[in-house]
């Protein structure tokens, strides 16, 4: 029998349902892999008992002849941005260290209700702010991938969902939750050779997810195949009356409607994504992607998204603006860290608590956000950025007259070494350049692995779809997956 940790979501679910192995066996195998994977620093806390308890419930349900959920018997990693009842939830910050919620986020609850179990809470960039998982209070996550030249430099697993990408790529978890504000699912998926989809804004409830930028934050699955993403997204999504921005729409049967037959479909290729400084190998992967989609029956057409170059600056105004307000609640008054120097008054306590509790990148974004919302600057920055956001959404609207789905690179480069960009925030922010437009427009977008570069590192291709058309994205992703036949794995060194 294949190692259970080699199996994906679909294979585990079907194998458990068929009685090929028990959910408990699956949970134990993954718990063992979690315990052995400490060198990756992917987990902030591990929860082997949670995984076992969920598995036992599934095994009991199966024994009783009950119908099993869409994720029955699948142990997953939970990004530590989702509130989990009774399990520490930190957003990888010191300010929330030790915070144990008395409530369960809607998305995680949906997953448990579908029969999934939790292996642990995954490390991430602090408050999901970062593209390399280097801003976590709990240390860097190290990518399971290494350069094939034998260089031992630790590589970035991407961010902010870096714990998620690392464990899925390393076969420690078959799947993990991610959240994507400006690429935080797609970029780490691309860096680690796995799939990840950010659905249409509003598909997955934000209730119980520690907020970064409310108008952009969206949860989604990260797994090793398009099918697994379709299954897991189906379990995560759904209308939630507790989230005013939740989409009141039925969840489509994504898994059942998967089809790699793209005849009659048009794939748009935006000329503005051919940016200076993009790695030639990335451009090469893009060319291959076009070929694969043509091979699947699609027609590839050139399109223009003229405001693309304004997306990144607009994003880095809107997201910090919202974050500066969203993070005001971490003040030392009610929960989390409280720093109370001798003789401190209320303002002193705020200052000391927030100075000690937030990392540099979080502070940087709070400062930027506070600045762009200030009297006298609001119109020039925040309002202007919102106008740009409208124009970017309009670019996509116009594009849909010409195509059904858009193909683009996910990132401008392959994974970089940890430490490479930490001194240069702008270079770091540039990593999100291809990811951010779809976030600003609230569109579904996915990264699927395409190939390895000359250094033996994975490169991802991005598919962006119309609002609510996750199916179109998944289907195009499936067509690429079938033709790319990406089966590379990181060599185990941990």
């Amino acid at each position, binding site marked *: 029998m294949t190692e259970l940790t080699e199996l994906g979501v679909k294979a585990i679910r079907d194998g458990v349902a068929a009685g090929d192995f028990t959910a408990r066996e699956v949970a134990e195998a993954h718990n063992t892999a979690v315990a052995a994977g400490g060198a990756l620093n992917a987990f902030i806390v591990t929860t082997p008992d949670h995984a076992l308890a969920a598995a036992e419930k599934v095994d009991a349900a199966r024994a009783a002849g009950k119908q099993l959920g869409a994720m029955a018997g699948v142990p997953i990693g939970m990004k530590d941005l989702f509130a989990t009842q009774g399990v520490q939830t930190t957003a990888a910050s010191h300010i929330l260290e030790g915070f144990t919620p008395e409530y369960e986020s809607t998305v995680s609850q949906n997953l448990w209700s579908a029969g999934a179990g939790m292996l642990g809470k995954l490390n991430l960039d602090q408050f999901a702010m970062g593209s390399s998982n280097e801003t976590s209070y709990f240390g860097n996550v190290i990518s399971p991938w290494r350069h094939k030249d034998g260089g031992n430099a630790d590589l970035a697993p991407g961010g902010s969902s870096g714990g998620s990408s690392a464990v899925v790529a390393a076969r420690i978890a078959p799947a993990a939750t991610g959240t994507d504000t400006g690429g935080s699912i797609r970029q780490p998926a691309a860096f680690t050779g796995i799939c990840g989809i950010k659905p249409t804004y509003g598909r997955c409830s934000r*209730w119980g997810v520690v907020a970064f930028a409310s108008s952009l934050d969206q949860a989604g699955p990260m797994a090793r195949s398009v099918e697994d993403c379709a299954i897991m997204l189906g379990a995560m999504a759904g209308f939630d009356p507790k989230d*005013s921005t939740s989409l009141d729409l039925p969840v489509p049967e994504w898994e059942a409607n998967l089809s790699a037959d793209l005849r009659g479909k048009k794939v748009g290729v935006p000329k503005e994504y051919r940016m200076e400084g993009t790695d030639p190998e990335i451009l090469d992967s893009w060319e291959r992607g076009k070929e694969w989609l043509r091979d699947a029956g699609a027609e590839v057409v050139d399109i223009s998204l003229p405001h693309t170059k304004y997306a990144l600056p607009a994003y880095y105004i809107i997201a910090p603006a919202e974050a500066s307000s969203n993070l005001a609640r971490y003040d030392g008054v009610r929960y989390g860290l409280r720093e109370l120097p001798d003789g401190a008054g209320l303002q002193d306590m*705020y200052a000391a608590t927030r100075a000690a509790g937030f990392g540099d990148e979080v502070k940087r974004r709070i400062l930027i956000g506070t600045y762009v919302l200030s009297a006298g600057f609001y119109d020039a920055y925040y309002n202007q950025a919102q106008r740009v956001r409208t124009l970017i959404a309009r670019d996509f609207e116009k594009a849909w007259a010409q195509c059904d789905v858009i193909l683009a690179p996910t990132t401008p480069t392959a994974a970089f070494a940890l430490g490479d960009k930490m001194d240069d925030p702008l270079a770091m922010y540039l990593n999100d350049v291809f990811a951010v437009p779809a976030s600003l427009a609230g569109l579904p977008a996915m990264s699927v692995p395409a190939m390895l570069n000359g250094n033996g590192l994975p490169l991802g291709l991005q598919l962006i779809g119309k609002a609510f058309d996750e199916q179109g994205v998944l289907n195009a992703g499936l067509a690429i997956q079938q033709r790319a036949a990406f089966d590379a794995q990181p060599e185990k060194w941990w």
Partner: protein
Amino acid sequence: MSSYRIQGATGEWEVVIGLEVHAQVTSNAKLFSGASTEFGAEPNTQVSLIDAAMPGMLPVPNRECIRQAVRTGMAIEAVINRWSRFDRKNYFYADLPQGYQISQLYHPLVGEGSLTIEADEKAGIPQDKVIGVERIHVEQDAGKLMHDQHPTMSYVDLNRCGVALMEIVSRPDMRSPAEAGAYVRKLRTILRYVGSCDGNMEEGSMRADVNVSVRRPGEELGIRTETKNVNSVRFVMQTIEYEARRQVDLIEDGGTVVQETRLFDPNTGTTRSMRSKEDAHDYRYFPDPDLLPLELDDAFLEECRASLPELPDAKRRRYVEELGLSDYNAAVLTAEVETFARFETLLAETAKRLGKSEKDAATQVANWSLSVAPGVMNALGDEANPAHATAEAQAAILQMQTAGEISGGQAKEIFEIVLKTGREPAEIAETEGLKQQSDTGAIEAEIDKVLAANADKVEEYRGGKDKLFGFFVGQTMKATQGKANPAVVNELLKAKLG
């Protein structure tokens, strides 16, 4: 025009007043959470995860709060904005868990409207005056800090945190403390009619931020100060009096008024500076990304409109024009919801019993409601049980009085017993002998005795001393122990005295 002026050393000054009234919306749950809004609960027992701003919590608007604010807007004939939006007002304070208040700055729910304050000569309001309302928006209340629980720490009670408030912003249309007082009272009346706020200022359900500036009559507006959280009509008026005088004195002494936020001290009737414009917060308002814009559809607006009761001005007009009441009676009867509700119930019951139209019974019921009944109640004090003052009992008394069965004095006596005991008026009249005699035979006999005993006075009367008629009436009433129907006595006396 108000003639209210501050007499300064250098001449007259006019006061310009605008009010921002914060009214707590009557609803069971808070604006964005399901927590209860009941007053007086133990600290921190009415706090949801949302109110405490736990990580990942999201606001969901409470439809009833929006509905009440829309109905309030309709009651002051304001523009209702079908599209409005919530903004965040960012600042740090321990009573504000989110670190921002969800409010509406850029696109309020309710736009321009107005209300009318009534002429009140005594108060220096010579005629009715329309006061503009610039807007009404909805927002969250904050929690409460308690500084007296611990020697070195402050405690926070989040029960009020997140409760829905309407902020009702007037135009700077008021020119005297009396006008401001009348505005707050009128607004309170309207809110209570609509049922959107209980108007209870002691419990903090209504409080006002008072904007005051002074100027030479007819000149440009002066610099204003804003005195926060004034919680009674009297204090609003005191704030204005104090602020206007302070500003005039300041200017006349060569100083300038500073735009600032001030606090009212009820113990001294004075205000003091809280913070000046220079240290004013930059609230960094921006649209709340957790909430979609509020869009109101026709059905919702129609329901809001259809559910509005008859409003104070309309009711008052109807009392005068249709029920024939005096302006004064109409004004008093319509000032409070409880008053008109009692009046209308009693009027309906009395008209039914008398077989009259409400119009024909209205004046009698108004007089009873406004002078007779309160007089009896007040005289009894604690002995009276107001629960016994049912519409049925009072209508029964009025019915007996109208039929001539009892006199006005007997009506009061019967009502007194009703208030003390809850007994039936008819039974009281019977048992206690509180009935008038209308039996002409018996009264005639008494009159004859009176006339016989006072033959000299009869002569004088017949000789032209008309005033003695009252004497004969009095003697007859005395002889019948006050039980004779005065109308019958008058009639018979007139006939006999020729």
